[in-house]
């Protein structure tokens, strides 16, 4: 046993170099001022104070709103999809799960560009609309386009944990519910859904985390003026060059996500019952 403990060392070194040190740097940046070089730094909380300005709070609220809507749609489509997949034979199931994950093999940027060409003013959707004699519509650079992009991008992260939970359900529990007089609808809400909750909680956490922190999708499908918190952080680091403020926003986002995860964990029956 003792020998194998050594094997963990490269990973430890890697984690410290690539995760712990950068995190500490972000914390330092967020509570200091004096440029990006860390040469003459001064402690300050002004970075956090700045975030309280209405313009930034608005971006923050908008991000949460878009995030929640994205999670809701992901949950709705993802649950139905996972539930339907579970009804097939085992071989068909693994094939369908493969289909769900295939888009993840392709770069997000490419997938987002694909949505641009579908939704743009003379894109596929509008071409079909005009062919049908309907007025073309503007999809690009709207909330709609951003949400469509996010839902399609993050759906696998909802489907897979829910599918895993559903497929693990002991079928005799379903039979027991029928045996005790529950019809299909009652059985679903009183038994199946409850047993799939761990997957639902994981799926919601993952998709929420992804959708509040993304910046590629809102940038491409929302346009240059479209600001979500991910874009704000990106701008602070890349365009404005204010690493201190960028770090402070990152810290705030991290705390919000942590709070959200803690709340979700409470709802997970497996984790909550520690008393």
């Amino acid at each position, binding site marked *: 046993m003792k020998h194998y403990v050594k094997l963990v060392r490269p990973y430890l070194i890697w984690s410290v170099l690539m995760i712990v040190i950068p995190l500490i740097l972000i914390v330092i940046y967020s509570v200091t001022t004096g440029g990006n070089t860390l040469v003459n730094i001064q402690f300050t909380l002004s970075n956090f104070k700045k975030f309280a300005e209405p313009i930034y709070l608005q971006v923050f609220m908008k991000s949460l709103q878009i995030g929640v809507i994205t999670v809701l749609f992901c949950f709705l489509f993802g649950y139905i999809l996972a539930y339907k997949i579970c009804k097939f034979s085992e071989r068909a199931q693994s094939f369908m799960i493969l289909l769900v994950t295939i888009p993840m093999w392709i770069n997000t940027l490419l997938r987002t560009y694909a949505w641009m060409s579908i939704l743009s003013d003379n894109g596929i959707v509008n071409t079909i609309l005009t062919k049908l004699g309907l007025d073309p519509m503007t999809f690009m650079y709207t909330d709609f386009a951003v949400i469509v992009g996010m839902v399609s991008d993050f759906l696998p992260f909802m489907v897979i944990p829910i599918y895993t939970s559903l497929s693990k359900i002991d079928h005799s529990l379903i039979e027991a519910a029928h045996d*005790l007089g529950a019809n299909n609808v009652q059985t679903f809400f009183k038994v199946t859904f409850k047993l799939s909750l761990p997957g639902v909680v994981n799926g919601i956490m993952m998709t929420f985390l992804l959708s509040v922190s993304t910046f590629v999708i809102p940038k491409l499908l929302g346009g240059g003026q479209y600001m979500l918190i991910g874009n704000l952080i990106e701008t602070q680091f890349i365009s404005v060059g204010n690493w201190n403020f960028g770090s402070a926003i990152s810290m705030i986002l991290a705390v919000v996500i942590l709070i959200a995860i803690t709340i979700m964990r409470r709802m997970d029956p497996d984790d909550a019952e520690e008393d």
Partner: protein
Amino acid sequence: MHNKIIELKHLTKNFGEQQVLKGIDLNIYENEFLTLLGPSGCGKTTTLRIIAGFEEPSGGEVLFNGVDISKVPAYKREVNTVFQKYALFPFLNVYDNVAFGLKIKKKSKSFIDEKVKKTLKLVGLEGFDKRNVTLLSGGQQQRVAIARALVNEPKVLLLDEPLGALDAKLRKEMQSELKKIQKEVGITFIFVTHDQEEALSMSDTVVVMNEGIIQQIGSPVDIYNEPENRFVAGFIGESNIIPDAVMKRDLLVSFDGFDFDCVDKGFKENEEVEVVLRPEDIDIVDVENSKIKGKVKSIIFKGVHYEIVVETQYRDYLIHTTDYFETGLHVGLSFGPEDIHVMYKM
């Protein structure tokens, strides 16, 4: 035990190419403890699942109080099941597991409360209401499963090898407990098991099944003493089966070169038959006093009795006796006419 409650009429079931039930005809009566007994894959669980409504029969009818229910979904049937691995809802405590069926039927709170408390008492789980079912012992989970089914007051309770997961001592305890509960609630129990001893000690009626066919239906005593064929004889207890006997005429059977008086009749003259001799029915006697002679091949101490194998000219005989006989000793075998059970050849 007067009125038929369930009638199975030429029930068949195919899973793909495989036919697991090949025409089951069975009457089940009110207040009866009936056991479906057989080796795994004999169709006993499938029969039970068809009665419960989890499987649809491929052919035949299931009559419940005279009405065909083979197309009625499980949740509308007046039967409840105790599952092999209990199938308790892990997210509900003991009380809510037992109350599940009554809550579905929208019974009043006070009614549910009274029924659940009463049923938990019946199965010996008073005061377990708030306990987490996943933390209970196997025996306790078993009792919750029985209570959860019984609380709905089904006309028939189906039990799918419910004692299979318990250890030997607990099994014995639950066997008598189940019998007691059945007498107390006064409903029909249909019990599935592969354990012959369990079947014999609990049932009013035993149905022995093999390869999708009913081999014999009868009381435990009948099944043990008068097995109808070689399969039943071999499956119920240990036995010596003589496959090459001939029925000379009524009350006279011939094997191992001798004629023996017996109590069986109704066979054709000189019909080839099979004979069962239970190990505990054979006595070891002096060589001079017996027709069948042999020598002791092995002796094993089994606690209450010795298990002795005697090698004879035609075959080895298995004998259970409390007396000790040395290996290699020449002995005679003796049995009375009522110990010889003649069966039709399979």
